[in-house]
């Protein structure tokens, strides 16, 4: 005569094999319990999830203790690279009175950061950047356009337009440096209406069609339109604000320059995800870097690189 435990196990085995048998009525409540136990969670899962959540919570707590945006940096920081980075730093010092804030040696070159007025630029130098040089165009505000223009020429730049009073309330002259960067050197007319703080150095993007790019910037980086000026069916100038930085653009047939922008943001992962969802191509998903940054790399529809970055502990 089978024992009670044998009968229960027979019923359980049949249930687990999905071949239910007639069960002694006395055992039915126990078999019901056993049936419910088939769905119980594994102990391993509970503890793994507990550990994962604890780790995330700790990371989130330490991340919130660190201000994600670097002191002194605006949301956008142009990142120029050239095999002769030292020459570029010297050019910026001589022409615009740039202050070299840091220079860090890296294998095959260095990474430098310079301040011009209240704007920062990053410069990568050496063999490490050969073949992937990045340049840009910049609208730069100086106290004396004519003097800065002259210094630029003395430092080896080529004139693209003598200083002259421009219809947009500025006196400006244009130069190209040895690396190919464009500098639109400007001084606002004293009579021009006061404007909010836009920074001393504003990146300028040359592109064929501004409208789709404006839409991209709004979707990818939450850009806010500051103004779009059209003439003869062409967007001659447009400005957007991204965080606390301003990006300018104008339509032309000149090809878009291969530029790179560092983006200091509160949440690298969220900015990366939003940019990719808006159509940016992912080059590098967010990853912690040894220099206490969490960074990602995306490329916009014009081929320009953006590096969303947050500080980490």
């Amino acid at each position, binding site marked *: 005569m089978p024992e009670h435990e044998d009968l*229960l196990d027979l019923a*359980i085995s049949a249930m687990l094999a999905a071949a239910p048998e007639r069960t002694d009525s006395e055992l039915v409540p*126990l078999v019901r*319990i*056993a049936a419910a136990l088939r*769905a119980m969670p594994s102990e391993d899962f509970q503890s793994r999830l507990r550990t994962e959540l604890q780790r995330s919570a*700790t990371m989130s707590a330490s991340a919130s203790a660190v201000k994600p945006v670097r002191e002194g940096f605006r949301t956008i920081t142009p990142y120029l690279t050239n095999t002769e980075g030292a020459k570029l730093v010297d050019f910026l010092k001589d022409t615009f009175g740039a202050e070299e804030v840091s220079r860090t040696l890296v294998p095959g070159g260095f990474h430098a950061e310079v301040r011009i007025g209240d704007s920062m630029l990053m410069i990568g130098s050496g063999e490490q950047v050969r073949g992937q040089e990045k340049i840009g165009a910049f609208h730069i505000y100086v106290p004396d356009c004519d003097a800065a223009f002259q210094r630029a020429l003395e430092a080896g730049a080529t004139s693209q337009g003598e200083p002259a009073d421009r219809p947009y309330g500025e006196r400006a002259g244009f130069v190209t440096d040895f690396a190919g960067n464009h500098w639109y050197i400007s001084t606002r007319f004293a009579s021009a209406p006061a404007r909010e703080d836009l920074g001393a150095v504003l990146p300028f993007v040359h592109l064929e069609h501004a409208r789709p790019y404006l839409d991209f910037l709004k979707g990818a980086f939450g850009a806010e339109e500051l103004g779009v000026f059209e003439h003869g069916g062409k967007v001659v100038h447009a400005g957007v604000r991204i965080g606390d930085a301003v990006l300018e653009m104008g339509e032309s047939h000149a090809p878009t320059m291969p530029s790179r922008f560092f983006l200091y943001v509160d949440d690298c992962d969220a900015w990366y995800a939003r940019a990719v969802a808006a159509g940016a191509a992912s080059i590098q998903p967010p990853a912690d870097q040894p220099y206490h940054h969490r960074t990602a790399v995306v490329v916009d529809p014009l081929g320009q690189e953006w590096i969303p970055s947050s500080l980490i502990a």
Partner: protein
Amino acid sequence: MRHAESSGGEDERLLVEAAQSDPARFGDLYEQNFHRVYAYIVRRVADRHHAEDLTAEVFREALAGIRKFEWRGVPFSAWLLRVASRAVADHWKHSGREVEDAALESEPSGSVETERHAMLFQLVDRLPEMQFRVIHMRFVEQKSIREIARELDRSEGAVKQLQLRAIENLRAQMEVAHA
């Protein structure tokens, strides 16, 4: 390590506030709600693997959004079950199948059956160690009595006895809890 769940509105409110000011304290809310969320989900997807994935998703989302939770007198578990309900609906949607009726239930406190299952899973955690091992190996790892006997170095008869005692134990405690 096994933990017990507890309940109580004011206690829960304090736990939520603690986790909102310090996410590292989220663990208490996890312990308190794990079985309920899991039971809610497993009844609707009927597969342990998917249920575990979705449960993990719900708690990750809850941790990420804990600071946005506003206390309006509704238990924290109701918020979790709403997140769970959405996760289950998405699961069915992505699996290309119609959403089952059960997945559409959105009772803030979950159904009576969900609560019964949650309690049962919680009670398993409180079984004496050897009974717990047998139940886990038999129902989660789906091992035969013979395999369990070999692993635990017990006779098959002893393992069957442990299984019987564990299930009787669970039944008795369930009856007490629902009396």
